[in-house]
């Protein structure tokens, strides 16, 4: 997570230049600053460099989307009318411990009838399998410690907790092998087929499994085990998760406005806070109103910061700043503005960092050339 500096503005050089006093030092400092500025300009604005940074940010957006796709693949069959909801298993919400601000899992599913709650983590890469498993062990512990809280809030009907990993088919076997090695009670769900990208979710259990292992890698409910086989699923369901990339959060603004509402022809390209709150409340179902409001306001604030949205005089009303009213064009515009802003922020941060270092160096140099006046009044034992 990138730490946001309180003030991203480049620091004012004047007071420091004054402090340096000596012309030689002043010039040196100015020259260094100039060199620094040019260097950073080259680094951040040079087309080739810029493209590389753009690609990196795009990569982060894609990575975030890939994760959300696997979460969706895991939870969708528990909302879609079908075998699993008929069995009485329902998707409850994502990040059940978020309101408590502690380490969390991606989603929780409950069967009130069978009194079972399933806590799950979606993983897009299982390269670091041992780390993944040990993290899940920690989360499991945290969940157990918060059993009472969870039962008072999201899973009031459950007294049995289970833990699950959702992964793409090509990663499932490896992770499963490591889970068995670890001897933990984690179930593996696989999205897609082994040979192709089919839109299905299945519990993964190899054919020959000992009874002992079976108990650890399958659900307690055999009905669930039998039905969680090649179930229709989808990677589009939730557009945002609470920790989604800001671009995903803001993407909702590309289609939210009231422009196409035939009863509001004069409100083109505008929206109110409550319009966005309504959508966030559905996307982040079962989240506290406080948290929904916080995330909604944060999203609007960010959109204003990058110049995609402007606040209007009317209370809690905003206008989309974009050339086009077409969501697709707006999305590209939003992405570009976000990435440009991120690059600019990185540049300013680096400039600040380097300036502070430079100032520290110059301060030392000044001390060497012009020691402070009180050093002249130090007691000189040798006597003068």
């Amino acid at each position, binding site marked *: 997570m990138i730490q946001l500096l309180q003030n991203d503005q480049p620091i004012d050089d004047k007071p420091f230049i004054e402090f340096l006093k000596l012309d030689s030092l002043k010039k040196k400092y100015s020259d260094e600053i100039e060199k620094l500025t040019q260097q950073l300009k080259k680094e951040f604005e040079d087309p080739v460099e810029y493209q590389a940074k753009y690609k990196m940010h795009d990569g982060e957006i*894609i990575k975030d*989307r890939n994760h959300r*796709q696997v979460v969706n693949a895991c939870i*969708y069959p528990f*909302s*879609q*009318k*079908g075998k699993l*909801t008929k069995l*009485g298993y*329902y*998707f*409850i919400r994502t990040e059940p411990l978020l309101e408590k601000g502690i380490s969390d899992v991606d989603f929780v599913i*409950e069967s*009130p*009838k069978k009194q079972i709650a399933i806590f799950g983590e979606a993983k897009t890469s299982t390269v670091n399998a041992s780390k993944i498993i040990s993290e899940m062990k920690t989360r499991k512990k945290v969940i157990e410690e918060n059993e009472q809280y969870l039962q008072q809030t999201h899973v*009031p*009907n459950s007294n049995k907790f289970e833990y699950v990993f959702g992964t793409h088919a*090509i990663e499932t076997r490896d992770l499963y092998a490591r889970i068995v090695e670890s001897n933990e009670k984690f179930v593996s769900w696989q999205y*897609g087929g082994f*040979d*192709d*990208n*089919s*839109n299905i979710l299945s519990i993964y259990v190899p054919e020959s499994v000992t009874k002992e292992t079976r108990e650890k890698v399958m659900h307690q409910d055999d009905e669930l085990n039998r039905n969680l086989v090649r179930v*229709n699923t*989808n*990677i*589009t*369901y939730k*557009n945002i998760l609470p920790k989604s990339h800001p671009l*995903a959060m803001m*993407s909702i603004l*590309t*289609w939210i406005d009231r422009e*196409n*509402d*035939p009863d509001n022809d004069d409100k083109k390209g505008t929206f109110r806070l409550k319009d966005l709150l309504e*959508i966030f409340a*559905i996307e982040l*179902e079962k989240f506290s109103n406080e948290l929904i409001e916080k995330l909604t306001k944060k999203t609007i604030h960010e959109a204003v910061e990058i110049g995609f949205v402007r606040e209007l005089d009317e209370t809690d009303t905003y206008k989309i700043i974009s050339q086009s009213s*077409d*969501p*697709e064009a707006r*999305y590209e515009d939003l992405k570009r503005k976000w990435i440009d802003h991120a690059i600019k922020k990185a540049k300013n941060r680096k400039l600040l960092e380097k300036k502070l270092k430079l100032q520290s160096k110059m301060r030392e140099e000044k001390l060497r050339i012009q020691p402070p006046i009180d050093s002249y009044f130090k007691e000189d034992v040798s006597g003068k």
Partner: protein
Amino acid sequence: MKLANKEYTVDSFLEEISNHETKYFEESKERKWLKTFLLYVESDWLQLFKKFNPEKNGELYYFMIPNSKEDKPTEYYATQFTDGLIMIFTFETQDEYTKTLQRYINKKRGITQMWIKPEIFKQIRNYLIENYQSYITSFIAKRTWSSEISSQYRPRINRTIHYYGEDGIESIKELEHLYGVSPTLIDFKIGSDSLRITNEGMFVFHTLEITKTRIVLEIINSILLEQRHLHKISTSIESHLEKIQFGNNSIDVRQIESGLIKFSRPLETILARKLLGEANELDIGRSQDDELEFSFIDKDIKDERGLLFSATVIDKLKSSVFGITGTKDEITCVPMHRTTFESFIRFYKLISESVDSSAQLGIVSDPIVAK
């Protein structure tokens, strides 16, 4: 043009027009033809026209829509044919209709023109040829380059053919075969009268004789099963919160029913890219109509282990938002925000016209059994 105030049924309404032709038409410079528009609606359809203050005349309802350019408002009669399907009768010109009622329908949630898919449109054509010995005097037929319909000549071309000729019946078949086009508008000659039908559910009668105008009712009846099925499926696609009871407790959970469009043959990656608007480098981006209606954001197309694509789709006319996940075999449409049934019909129409004219629409919990 307003008829006498009576308690009409569709039949008596058509009879009234037929029997009193001179009374209603006198010497109008421009002969106005009777038009019938078929529309899909939500159940409480009269609510959709509330702002025009419809006047009840038996089963028919009369209303006017002001025309911004002219002093005279446009006039319409609406009636329910069956649950979810209404008919609009009018003598307004196509142009006036487009500027008034059609414009209203395009943006109003809960109502849409009744699209007739190619195989059903063909059924209508055959019905008229066989039962009325009608022949075809002109037609418009189109092809999208990505259509899976075979074309003897240059299949990868977008084309529109306007044909005029007394041999329309044969020409349509020949052009379908040679150029892979599908008719969207056909002019039939029935005896000395003519009838125009489009695949958006518009009927234009160049006669007021009831024996001919009643044909529209026969045609609707012949295709009713299929059209009702489409309406039923599309209105089933929705998402809501449901209270699940068990014993003394209950929880609120989200229940979704997604739409499922099954392809008749595996979808090529290039077509998925075209659908999502990512095929521009081949200079065959979307048609103007497509751009008008649907917008795709947050697009993703994967291909290494078989086609898997996804996007969030916005119906710009109706402000619906739904997600699509597609493979080579099917596309699932997941309702997300403010969805309305007609968005799914029109999305299915988009797939049918540009990608797979034999694709079938169903719902996830009740997939279509292959015919």
